[in-house]
């Protein structure tokens, strides 16, 4: 080897080494800030990620205070119940119910929530999952392409999740966005990070306030007492008569959740549920924890069954697994009245109160007598 070729080779090595260092440095800096608790500790508590993390942390802390009669519920905003209502009744419940649900989430976000909430997959007596239907009725063409999942679950995503998580989206643009985000979390946290830089003081104060108060706020939260009394739907024409003084949200939720034309049944929701409920159930395979699916009340006026033929049902298929239980399909049908709803899809105060009691009873019925290990409150 001549002297000049030695120099050239050493320069090439320098460049290759530098490029490796550059990428390692980028991933290292990203990991230092976003994969440790450095940045997540100052997340905007009212952001999607902030709320998700707040609930996760709250429930992780709560685990220390309860024995082995703990049941966690998980779902979206339609799965609304109140622990305070149950406490106020003064009855000693057989099981302690905790709520890890969050508005806007779906089974993919629940999987990542449960994975970190219950790393051993044995902490809970049961996990109660609230769903709209035991059948998978397709609504829209791509249930798997809800980008909010990236923001809910970002703090939970590990490097080993990058491929699996991004591949669970179908649109190439979203696949790229989620791949990039799961790999370099700063790209997802960016908006939150820049807002923090703009007002770091107020952010820290808000985070502090939420840390101290969020648990109480969630516990004492009282649902709106608005009612949908007077709502009528002509299912033949999908014509809607709203209650007098109905607002835009009530109109929108009635139209989008109830009085809509059926979509083509493609089986995509079925595939999505198979994948993500399947993942949750796989984690609990062989675990003493029961997975309870609960079909929630279907709305102020339920859609007639004959509006759409639903050929797919992932949840009914899962029912054959040993630790999976489907609550009575009609257990909450008595709530399907306009007076229990504040809009077209969410229970109001009276609905939440009634549902909370029914939920506790249904779970006790399914699980049977508790083992009565005292709570460590």
């Amino acid at each position: 080897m001549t002297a000049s070729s030695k120099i050239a080779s050493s320069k090439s090595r320098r460049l290759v080494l530098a490029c490796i260092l550059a990428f390692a440095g980028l991933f290292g800096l990203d990991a230092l800030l976003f994969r440790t608790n450095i940045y997540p500790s100052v997340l905007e508590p009212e952001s999607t990620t902030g709320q998700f993390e707040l609930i996760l942390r709250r429930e992780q802390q709560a685990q220390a205070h309860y024995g082995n009669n703990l049941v966690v519920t998980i779902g979206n905003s339609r799965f609304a119940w109140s622990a305070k209502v149950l406490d106020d009744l003064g009855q000693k419940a057989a099981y302690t119910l905790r709520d890890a649900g969050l508005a806007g989430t779906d089974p993919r976000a629940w999987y990542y929530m449960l994975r970190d909430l219950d790393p051993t997959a044995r902490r809970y007596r049961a996990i109660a999952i609230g769903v709209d239907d035991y059948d998978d009725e397709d609504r829209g063409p791509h249930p798997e392409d809800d980008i909010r999942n990236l923001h809910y679950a970002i703090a939970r995503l590990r490097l080993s999740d990058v491929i699996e998580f991004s591949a669970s989206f179908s649109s190439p643009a979203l696949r790229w966005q989620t791949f990039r985000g799961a790999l370099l979390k700063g790209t997802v946290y960016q908006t939150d990070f820049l807002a923090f830089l703009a007002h770091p003081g107020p952010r820290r104060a808000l985070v502090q306030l939420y840390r101290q108060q969020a648990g109480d706020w969630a516990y004492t939260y009282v649902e709106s007492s608005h009612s949908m009394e007077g709502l009528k739907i002509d299912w033949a024409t999908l014509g809607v008569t709203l209650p007098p003084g109905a607002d835009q949200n009530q109109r929108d939720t009635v139209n989008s959740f109830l009085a809509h034309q059926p979509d083509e049944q493609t089986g995509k929701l079925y595939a999505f549920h198979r994948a993500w409920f399947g993942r949750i159930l796989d984690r609990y395979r062989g675990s003493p924890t029961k997975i309870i699916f609960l079909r929630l009340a279907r709305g102020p006026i339920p859609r007639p069954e004959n509006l759409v033929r639903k050929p797919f049902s992932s949840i009914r298929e899962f029912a054959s697994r040993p630790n999976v239980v489907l609550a009575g399909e009609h257990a909450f049908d008595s709530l399907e009245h306009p007076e229990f709803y504040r809009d077209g899809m969410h229970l109001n105060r009276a609905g939440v109160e009634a549902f909370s009691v029914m939920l506790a009873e249904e779970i006790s019925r399914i699980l049977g007598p508790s083992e009565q290990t005292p709570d460590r409150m």
Partner: protein
Amino acid sequence: MLFNTPQFFLFLAVVLVLFYASPRPLRKHILLAASYFFYASWNYKFVPLLLSLTVIDYSAGVWLEKAHTSARKKAVLILSLSANLGFLGFFKYFNFLAGNLALALDKPPDAFFRDIVLPLGISFHTFQSISYVVDVYRGEQQAIRNPIDYALYICFFPQLVAGPIVRARDFFRDLFHWQRPTQADVSRGILLMAIGLAKKMAFADQFAKIANTYFGNIQGNPGMLAAWSGVVAFGLQIYFDFSGYTDMAIGMAKLLGFHFPVNFRRPYLASSITDFWRRWHISLSSWLRDYLYIPLGGSRHGKWKTYRNLILTMLLGGLWHGASWNFMIWGLYHGALLAVERGFRGNRAIHEQWDWLYPFKAVLTFALVMIGWVFFRAADLRQSGQVLGQMFHGGSSHSLFLHWQRDLAVLALILAIGEERLEWFDRLADSPALVYGSALALVFFLTELFGVMDASIPFIYFQF
């Protein structure tokens, strides 16, 4: 395919692999095919136009060299210039002239409008073509005999859509005597691309948000400070946007073994408008100097003609940017400032000495340039007037910059002064792997934290 998209990086990676994996005679064909693919990916309908201009100017070059009489040479030159300026004029200025004609004839403004889409990069490749033909006419450049070589000069993808405007002698020197890039070239190329990407995504696009907020709602953001911050944000946006693009273009050209001229040299540190134009869009200002200002007589015929030539050159430079009164006034404004400076300075060379007066001169120059940007950015003359009114007579208000945006601007200023005084770029490019790699990591991280993702804010100069 914008330079700051994953698609472009994939394209570049494929081109680099194909380029270096191919036998040498094939390489220019690969670059040519890649360049046409790149151009067609924007709008394939304009490929025939690009090809037509290429054929015209290639033929003009060959004919010019074959022509023995000066009259025949002149005729070929005029034919070529007419074709180039005719296409440019039609696509770029037809509607502007039609609108003004309608106004003069008291007809509706769109009476003579045509639905014309401006071909991407036409201003740049037309100027490149013109410089080639004129150089051949002057005998400063040999006519290119191989049409592949000439076509590649016109459509080479790193600089096709927004420059820098590369002179034929520089391009063909690299093409005909192509040498594998040295490790230093590769180091600089990668660093330039990383810095260019950061300039575009983390700086330009962030400042664009402020500028768009301000110029999108001037009434909603009244006051002097709001106006100045909106205009300064645009000044920063256009600098980072355009210099970021050219940094990337120069960087990727280096990776392919081509050496483009520097296009920006920290223009906002200029101590005068003359100095500014020696630092801003250097390939355009030197083109205007060589093919317009000097042929007009330059400074050879007395001071008044010098002033006239300066103003006329800048006026046409303004018009090159776009067909509107705003661009013309912007050009006129800079021409007038250059003339005034020339009047004060006479024939003395400008001083770029960093003395105690320099900061004051730099701030004054910066402010004058910002005033010019008002015409460049505002939608029309009326809006320009409103903004200028707020800048000089607006009431009290607050800056539109957030803390971190101001900090980004300060960081850029520190880096610019550092480069001006210490030339850190070259030192960094030649530094040990640990330092070079760490610097790259920091640039990438800065882009990750501050870069505007997925918004597809196009490069400003793509519209010219």
